[in-house]
């Protein structure tokens, strides 16, 4: 069971840092095709920021931000984006995840089409990893039981 920290230092620093952590996670996802990082790493950082919020501000406060239902939707949406881009390439008579075929749809040069395709896949992976990370933590924290009422 998660006990909300009553330490004012941890609480305040967490609330100040969480937006920056989340932006850093998005930076890692968005620059994954130029520099180290990518969907998985960024998704983990994004999930960690939510876990930090749960530890410091409690489950209920975090659920106002991102409900369990939307976590489930995000985890499947991420996989859908990933697989969707792959299947789109198949439909355009290429191999699975053959981004160069997307050049016709996006009307950009081949290299840029590859870059954009990878970016799309990274976003999908990031969403899925964030949602799954958070839902694993959520399920461990509540012991698999729905006890939203007695958590505050």
């Amino acid at each position: 069971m998660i006990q909300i920290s009553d330490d004012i230092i941890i609480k305040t620093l967490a609330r100040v840092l969480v937006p920056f952590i989340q932006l850093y996670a998005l930076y890692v996802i968005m620059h994954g095709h130029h520099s180290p990082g990518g969907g998985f790493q960024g998704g983990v950082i994004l999930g960690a920021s939510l876990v930090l919020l749960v530890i410091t501000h409690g489950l209920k406060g975090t659920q106002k931000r991102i409900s369990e239902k939307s976590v489930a939707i995000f985890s499947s949406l991420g996989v859908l984006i990933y697989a969707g881009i792959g299947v789109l390439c198949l439909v355009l008579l290429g191999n699975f995840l053959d981004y160069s075929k997307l050049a016709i749809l996006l009307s950009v040069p081949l290299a840029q089409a590859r870059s954009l395709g990878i970016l799309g896949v990274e976003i999908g992976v990031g969403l899925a990893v964030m949602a799954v990370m958070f839902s694993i933590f959520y399920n461990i924290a509540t012991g698999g039981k729905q006890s939203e009422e007695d958590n505050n």
Partner: protein
Amino acid sequence: MEVTLLIEAMDTSFGLLEDARKKAVELLDSAVKLTSETRGVEENKIQAILKGAQETKLEFLNVIATFLILFGFWVLLSGKYDFFHLTLGVICSLLVAFLNHDLLFANARVGDAKVIFQRFIAYIPWLLYQIVSSNIHVALVALSKNKPIDPRIIRFKTKLESDISWVTMANSITLTPGTITMDIKDGEFFVHALDKKVADDLNAGEMEDRVAHVFMEADHIYVQDVLDVAPIFGELRKGL
């Protein structure tokens, strides 16, 4: 006989008139009550709308401020200034700002953010100087032969008011060698100090005063404020 009939008729007519008057007064009363009630309800409604508008405005300002700070952070991180990456930055910063607009500026007190920022920047050199000087002191204590270590836990009630100033104070204490903030409970600091000198330095309260000044919570006049006031006093004296 006729007279008594007449009197009875008059009595009943008077009674009827009285009843009618009472009814009219009651009606008027209830009408006034109703209008005042509806007015109260309407006033409450208008007040609620105004309050809601104010809150929305505040929320909007928070989103904008958070967005600007986050976008600056993004530009620092990204290092790519082409249109595509800046657009991504705007989208990501807006997303995070919308999700977290209540986090960065929660429990914000009334105060000029620009002044607080300037004062905070001015506070850092002083803190660095404190860190260096007490670093030398702790090194001397550690290296001296008889090791005059005299650990103690001091507690003091702070005059700081907001959580962010508490945290700044606590982290400043911890950053300064020789002292560590153990806990803050109900505005009371519990600090572990290495020896008497660092404890006395902390008890002198200069750091607290400076943090209070940074977050505009100072309830006494500062040297620089006095300097600002001095020319006015000079003029006054001339006039006398």
